[in-house]
């Protein structure tokens, strides 16, 4: 499986220190993301989720951009308290087809599972549109 770096990975990988810039091509072998034949991290690890995206369809950079924005970018209390923010989350909750991407541990909170991070790009675009976090981010910056 092909992977691509969507947020620079500068740190200690399994094989040692690395500095992998945006758009570096990688691949997976077994359960590890590899670069130049060296193991970087497990495909299910925190670093894989934050820095690497599946790229078999050539949409890895966009996939990583969307999953990172949705799963890891922070929103302050002001944004979270806006009715708009929760209204958009309500769209996600009410869409039964998205349940496959929700961790099942907790009923009342929506946490994205591993399947979300390698979902079809069309699915991710749809989720991104539902949540519209780009616009919330933009408002936050003003």
């Amino acid at each position: 499986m092909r992977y691509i770096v969507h947020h620079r990975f500068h740190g200690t990988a399994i094989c040692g220190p690395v500095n992998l810039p945006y758009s570096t091509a990688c691949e997976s072998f077994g359960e590890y993301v590899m670069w130049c034949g060296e193991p970087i991290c497990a495909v299910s690890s925190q670093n894989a989720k934050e820095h690497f995206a599946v790229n078999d369809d050539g949409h890895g950079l966009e996939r990583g951009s969307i999953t990172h924005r949705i799963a890891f970018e922070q929103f302050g209390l002001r944004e979270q308290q806006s009715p708009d923010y929760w209204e958009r989350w309500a769209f996600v909750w009410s869409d039964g087809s998205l349940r496959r991407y929700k961790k099942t541990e907790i009923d009342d909170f929506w946490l994205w599972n591993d399947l979300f991070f390698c979902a079809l790009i069309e699915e991710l675009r749809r989720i991104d549109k539902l949540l519209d976090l780009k616009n919330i981010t933009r408002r936050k910056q003003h």
Partner: protein
Amino acid sequence: MDSKVLVGGAVYKVKGGRTLIEGTGYDVKSGKTLIGGTGYGITFVDTTLNNNDWSVISETSSAGTAANYWSVGDTKAVAVSGTVGTLSVSGTYYAYILGFSHNSTYEGSNRIHFGCFKTAQTSGIDVCLVDSKYNSLSNGGSLRFNLNHSGSDNSGGWASCNLRSDVLGSDVSPSIPTSGTLLAAFSSDLRASMKSVTKYTDNTAGGNNSSSYVTATTDYLWLLAEFEIHGDRTYANSSEKNKQAQYTYYSSGNSKIKYKYSDTSTAAYWWTRSVNSRNDTSFCLVDKNGSYTVDGSYYSYGLAPAFAA
């Protein structure tokens, strides 16, 4: 974490293995090798956190590579056996990853911070320990789950509170835990893998929101601060957040609601280590809805401490 093997006089690092036995491939997860007459164990890291011994988790953490194998929220079984304050506890609970190298500038690098506890390796319920005095006051000196066992003030904050030393045992090395504490009730293999962190908290208290009140303590088994949970401040000293960070576990959207370990369908209030900066009697709590609140230091509420490996 490096394992090495000698081939033709040269030392090679062993990074993993796979072997074929009667047509079936197996992962090689451990082994032994002889270098210069000395035998060395070969240990590989399993990407399922719970399949690793605490020693492997600790070594991986020290090498700064833990986030390459595991993810925030992953769980590891913890055997708890002993008396904690006045509560007898015996069972297996699951610690979960709150963050990797959390706030390392202030707290120390290459550490995995774990929260306590969930009820199962997967799909577990977030629980806190509660004693028989839960939700009632107790200031007669008994080692209840209140921060102040004998008085009604918050003087000295986290550093000086009774609970920190005589119920959690956070202030001493895990190799010589104080009897009757949660630290002493942890298994020896876990205690051998625990690392100290430097936590910044209002350690003066008394109702004055002074920045100079925020000082460092060295802790092994601490309560979370208001800002570390919520990523914002309501009652805590407004300067605590300058040297704290919200845990990734919570910033990722995980629930702040905890249930009684003895009744997992009932949500509970649970203590933080932050004093209420607005008065001289109370500390911050997380309420049954996962929100901010405060109450008197002599009330018994849930304990959901954290530790590092």
